[in-house]
């Protein structure tokens, strides 16, 4: 019942255009995580991801009319903006090295130090493998496989036909499988 009472993104957008701060707060809290996580997976550095997230919501504040509810959802719009910001930043500078802290963080639930180390290593390998994919493959993989967006929404974010998303995703998965296979023997040696 309470879910029905939640205003839609289009309603919140209409209110924030009129200067309703509460509406903006609600929009931010609803979408901040998905925007930040997408940026983080694209650029691999939490600082850059935070900057891109901030710029994305600043654009919504300064130019709210850029979002047209008739053309798609607010989430797809925000993801599209952050994607362009990260891509532009990537053109300006080399891909940032992933944060060491991030790569090994949040493994405290593992029972032993060795398990923690191995889990962190696996996660780091996966991170590195995804970051080494070409940008077009990486964004398709992050959107469809990690954020589990439907192909149509991913196509809206990227700005390409659904067929292109599918083919990029297939290539990304194949390339990722190769990269992970290269890491596998190393992991095996480590466990022996």
């Amino acid at each position, binding site marked *: 019942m309470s879910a029905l009472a939640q205003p839609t993104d289009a309603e919140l957008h209409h209110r*924030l255009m009129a*200067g309703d*701060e509460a509406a*903006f*707060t609600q929009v*931010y*809290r609803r979408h*901040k*995580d998905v*925007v*930040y*996580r997408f940026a*983080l*997976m694209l650029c691999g550095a*939490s600082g850059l*991801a*935070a900057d891109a*997230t*901030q710029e994305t*919501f*600043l654009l919504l*504040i*300064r130019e709210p009319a850029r979002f047209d509810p008739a053309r798609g959802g607010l989430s797809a719009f925000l993801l599209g903006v952050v994607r362009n910001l990260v891509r532009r930043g990537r053109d300006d500078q080399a891909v940032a090295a992933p944060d060491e802290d*991030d790569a090994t*963080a*949040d493994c405290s639930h593992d029972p032993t130090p060795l398990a923690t180390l191995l*889990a962190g290593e*696996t*996660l780091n390998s*996966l*991170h590195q493998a*995804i970051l080494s994919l070409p940008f077009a493959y990486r964004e398709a993989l992050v959107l469809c*496989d*990690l954020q589990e967006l439907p192909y149509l929404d991913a196509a809206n974010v990227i700005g390409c036909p659904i067929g292109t998303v599918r083919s990029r995703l297939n290539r990304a*998965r194949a390339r*990722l*499988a190769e990269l*992970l296979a290269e890491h596998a023997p190393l992991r095996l040696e480590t466990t022996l």
Partner: protein
Amino acid sequence: MTPDEKALHAAYAPLRQDLATAVPPAGLEEGLLAAFRQQHAPVSRWQRLLQWLRQDRGLYLSLGGSCVAALAALMWLRPMLWNETQALQAAPAGTLAPAASTELTTAFFPLGDPARIEAAQHARMVRVSMPRASLAAYGLPVNPELADEAIEADLLVGDDGAPLALRFVRGKYQLI
């Protein structure tokens, strides 16, 4: 789902788990709300005037344009003014003339470079008296019979005390 896809999805599991804990910095929301408040801060009267001149009308009145507009307004107002003066004279004794809202003003004339008005962060309005002959400097007609009398004007003064723009003011029932 093919075995390869199953293996890949299994490989994603720790990454998905890790990603689920990633959140933007806590201070970000506060900064964005401050930006939102700034964006929607109330606009002062003189800023609205400038916006009206610059955006809503799609033009910024130049000095020449202002003069033409002021002249046209005067030409249009003069017969009406004459009629109203007659009506005031014919009004029965004891009838009070309307007070505060009976002022007529010209458009603002930029003084110097109009870009200074846009650059000014704050401005205040100062009511001054000026020689009536100064009307001529802005292309406005001067009544020879009243040439010796002063005329009131509103001066828009910038942060540094320098005048930015002015407009002439007169009572609704006062001849110019």
